[in-house]
């Protein structure tokens, strides 16, 4: 006779809301006629996201500080130990929801494709076949993308707060599977879209197995999948624990794959380029965030006791990732690919903040590894979505023109668009007075405080390297005369405009007045175990 699980539904409600609206989306899909689906789905999704957002904020307000915690911390382990609803977790929820809302704007943009969504009309059609053209004629649209997005989102939210390896694995799959599908749904360039989906799927499955095997080994070592209990086992260990080490390594592989760290990065450029741009934006921002928090949660909570065993390895990974990403990005000729490599480089910078494992000073709100990474994820995510939004606007007759050569002279043609893109680039490069600078500053500060100043020095040099290719784009857009007719910029629809504008505003405001947000992430405190 198994007792019914004790659940505090209130604190878990954001998860339920998102998942619930996802299911609702499916029902609508079945119930509604085609003419209304798109609009209704959009609105429903929006409502769901906003609702979840509101709830999350309220939940965050209700988090209370656990008694024993020596460090600033808030929240508690919920759902029979399966989920931890704590400061960083809930903030990640909010962050993800915001990203989702922004991306929704791009998902629902119908301006560019003659009043149709950026997704293929009928995924089943063979590219270039007459079925496809018929689909276009009948103005078919896959409105399932919205529920899919919501499912992925729910997976991410769970991923970030799972306190138990198997829950984490499930969450990992729940977030991945919808994304695999979404990647395949590009309206233009179907071939590379499908290819991207396949690569993402195969590699994703492959790496998640590593994660799972790691989980199995961890279970073998500690006799439990619960992070808290694993932590006890790890802290209490006497031997060097070869099994534990392998477990950590395997789990790390699964998570590093998701955040796109070298040498597990290879999928990133291909998938980012192949996937429909709105999806790319969503993936780049949200997946990285969720995966990074999960990574930190596992390694701080479960393996915190062994941090001196794993830190050096992560230092190396961080350095390789920063340098590789920055260097390879220099040679890229496709905007989306360049942004992909840049996201790799950023994973490196995030790892710098993470691998210092700086937990701060007892009961004082300072920039810890967690808080700095949280801040970084926000500014990076917003700028990324904004950047991809701009990419989706720069088009010619054949859809988006992502080849850099086509971007020459964009500055003359449409200074505002180019200006905002330049702003995002500067933010990525970490130029002061943009949010990116404070972000970098935060992770470096945490790293130095964590006692790894050589990482900081390498980091700043790497970001100089990175600056080079961001600057190159600006040179193309502003200093180079357009070759031939240059890019034709489609007048962005309301939604996209709003998204770009919001992203730009956030980037500037967080660059000039980062105080409030920094304050929040600092008081979010450490992970609750």
């Amino acid at each position: 006779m198994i007792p019914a699980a004790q659940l505090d539904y209130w604190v878990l409600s954001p998860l339920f809301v998102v998942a619930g609206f996802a299911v609702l989306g499916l029902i609508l899909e079945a119930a509604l006629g085609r003419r209304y689906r798109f609009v209704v789905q959009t609105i429903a999704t929006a409502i769901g996201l906003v609702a979840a957002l509101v709830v999350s904020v309220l939940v965050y307000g209700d988090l209370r500080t656990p008694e024993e915690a020596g460090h600033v911390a808030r929240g508690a382990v919920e759902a029979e130990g399966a989920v931890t609803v704590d400061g960083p977790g809930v903030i990640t929820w909010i962050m993800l929801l915001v990203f989702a809302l922004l991306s929704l704007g791009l998902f629902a943009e119908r301006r560019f494709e003659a009043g149709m969504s950026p997704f293929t009309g009928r995924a089943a059609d063979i590219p270039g076949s007459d079925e496809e053209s018929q689909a276009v004629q009948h103005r078919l649209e896959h409105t399932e993308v919205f529920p899919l997005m919501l499912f992925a989102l729910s997976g991410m939210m769970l991923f970030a707060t799972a306190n138990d390896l198997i829950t984490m694995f499930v969450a990992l799959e729940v977030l991945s599977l919808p994304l695999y599908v979404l990647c395949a749904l590009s309206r233009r360039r179907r071939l590379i879209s499908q290819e991207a989906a396949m690569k993402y799927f195969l590699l994703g499955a492959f790496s998640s197995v590593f994660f799972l095997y790691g989980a199995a080994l961890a279970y073998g070592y500690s006799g439990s999948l619960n992070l808290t209990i694993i932590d006890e086992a790890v802290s209490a260990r006497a031997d060097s624990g070869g099994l534990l080490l392998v477990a950590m390594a395997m789990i790390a592989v699964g998570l590093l794959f998701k955040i796109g760290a070298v040498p597990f990065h290879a999928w990133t450029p291909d998938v980012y380029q192949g996937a429909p741009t709105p999806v790319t934006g969503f993936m780049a921002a949200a997946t990285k965030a969720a995966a990074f928090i999960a990574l930190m949660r596992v390694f701080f909570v479960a393996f915190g006791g062994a941090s001196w065993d794993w830190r050096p390895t992560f230092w190396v990974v961080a350095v390789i990732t920063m340098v590789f990403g920055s260097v390879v990005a220099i040679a890229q000729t496709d905007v989306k690919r360049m942004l992909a490599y840049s996201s790799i480089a950023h994973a490196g910078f995030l790892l710098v903040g993470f691998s210092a494992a700086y937990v701060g000073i007892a009961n004082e709100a300072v920039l810890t590894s967690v808080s700095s990474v949280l801040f970084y994820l926000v500014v990076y995510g917003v700028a990324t979505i904004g950047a991809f939004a701009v990419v989706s606007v720069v088009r010619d007759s054949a859809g988006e023109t992502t080849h850099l050569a086509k971007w020459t002279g964009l500055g003359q043609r449409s200074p505002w668009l180019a200006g905002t893109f330049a702003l995002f680039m500067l933010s990525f490069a970490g130029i002061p007075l943009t949010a990116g600078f404070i972000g970098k500053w935060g992770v470096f500060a945490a790293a130095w405080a964590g006692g790894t100043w050589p990482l900081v020095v390498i980091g700043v040099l790497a970001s100089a390297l990175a600056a080079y290719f961001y600057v190159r784009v600006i040179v193309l857009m502003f200093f180079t005369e357009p070759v031939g007719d240059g890019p034709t910029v489609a007048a962005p629809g309301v939604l996209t405009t709003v998204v770009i504008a919001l992203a730009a505003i956030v980037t500037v405001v967080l660059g000039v007045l980062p105080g409030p947000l920094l304050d929040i992430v600092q008081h979010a405190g450490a992970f609750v175990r």
Partner: protein
Amino acid sequence: MLELSWLLIAIPLAGAALLLVWGKGADRFGHLIATAASAAAFVLGLIMFVELIGRGADDRSVTTSLGTWFEAGRFHVEFAFTFDQLSSLFVLLITGVGTLIHVYSIGYMAHDARRRRFFAYLNLFVAAMLTLVLAADYLVLFLGWEGVGLASFLLIGFWQHKETAAAAANKAFIMNRVGDLGMVIALMTMFATFGTTSIAAVNGAIDSASGSTATALGLLLLVGACGKSAQVPLQAWLLDAMEGPTPVSALIHAATMVTAGVYLVVRSAGIYDASEIARTVVVIVGLVTLLVGAWIGCAKDDIKKVLAGSTMSQIGYMMLAAGLGPAGYAFAIFHLLTHGFFKANMFLGAGSVMHAMDDDVDMRHYGALRRAMPITFVTFGLGYLAIIGFPGMSGFFSKDKIIEAALGYNTWIGLAAMIGAGVTAFYMTRLMMMTFFGEKRWRDEVHPHESPSVMTIPLIVLAAASVLGGALYLGGWITDWLEPIAGHAEHPHLPVPVIVVQLGVMAVVALGVAAGVWLYRRDVPDRAAADADVSIVTRAGRHEIYTNEVNGALVVLPVRYLTRLLVWLDARGIDGTVTGTADRIGEASQQLRRTQTGYVRSYALGIFGGALLVVLGLLAVTLA
């Protein structure tokens, strides 16, 4: 009244500023303003001088400060001027001769479109030169020092459209900079040692410092003096400087600026008294220059260059005297003044000749000009008698005194100086013969004529001065006058009685004159013999004893090649490293992107390998 010394400077400075700022509007009367300014300064100077004579010997030095120039930390410079026995003489020389030359230039530059600017520069020069001699602080002196340098640069290069003129101007300025380097280091040494650069203070406190400091200061200042006064080894610029309009040569490169070096040495009497070594070096420099200058003077056919060589040589005399210490300071100044008169006179005379000869400077095209231009001939002749030291003429006293003092110091040096006198007599005679005597050698289209009175009157005045300048020595006035500054000079005890020395000098001079007359009594060819068939001595003289070549080989070329080398290094080496690094990174990028093959399986391999590495890494960290 004596507190007005700043006004002496202000007047010509205002003149210069006015002419430059006013612009074309002042073209018609600019020269008059300038001349008036110079004259006004002279009058003021004269009044002040008279007042100074009126005072007692002990308070004949009046220092007035316009306030602090600049200060920081321990450093403090007063913008102060001293009007005393020494500077007053210079004031009169500068403004007096200066004014005459202004007047002369009115005629000489009458047809030059840029006459206004010429006069502006002249005024600027007068102001700067006055600053130099009135300065109470070495730094202020340096201000004037560079000011005259600038004026000289502007005036040598006045005819800028001539490459040669511009080049000569640059050469003069840059060679002077070498001297200035010495000055600057001297200034720094003063500050480091005494915490001040006030002339009086430094010379007063010099005894408290070590002898080596005094020597260092003496030598460094001498470097500066060599640059300004065209003393060996920094003499090379003076002959090129003759590219400037003749009045400039007369004023700057004969009468005043080039003698600044001598002034500096005398002004720094305290320092030189404290260092035997420094004085000796001064003597040697003076002596060498004296002979070299004379040597060059003998070999040149260009009338102005002959005079330039002679100037070098005469300044050599002054330096020599100055190097003798208290025994010679006064005579140095004495000769400086008389030389100022007769050399200016002769330069202006030469200018008048050139004026008549359509600016031809080659004496071989002259001849028999005494009839064509009597006034010029007579005045020039008087100057000639003065410089060779014809008894009774100013040069006779001043040079004679120096030679006596030199003999008293060291017989050989004295003798060398005597020989110099002989050579001087020779080349000046040569000049006279070639220019004014013999048969006419000029082409028929030239019609020599006497210059207008605006040019001849200054000649006459200067000629008179050249004749009467010796009066300064009446009753040893000048030595007594300068005693507070130069210190007391006890009479040199010579190996032979003074009269013998004087007769000796006269004999040598007579010899020189005779040689000159004899060699050039008959017509000279109107084209100089080629270098090949003249003696090595002549050839060396013509080439200014090859100093330009030496400088070129030792300084100019090395610097040029060093520069080229560095330019190359900067592009290849330093910037090369930078751009090279960038290129390397670019290549690395191209290489690395190849790892992105597009094959899923290779990606999977990456993940698999990465997993292994991470495992190994963790194991290594722990088990190591």
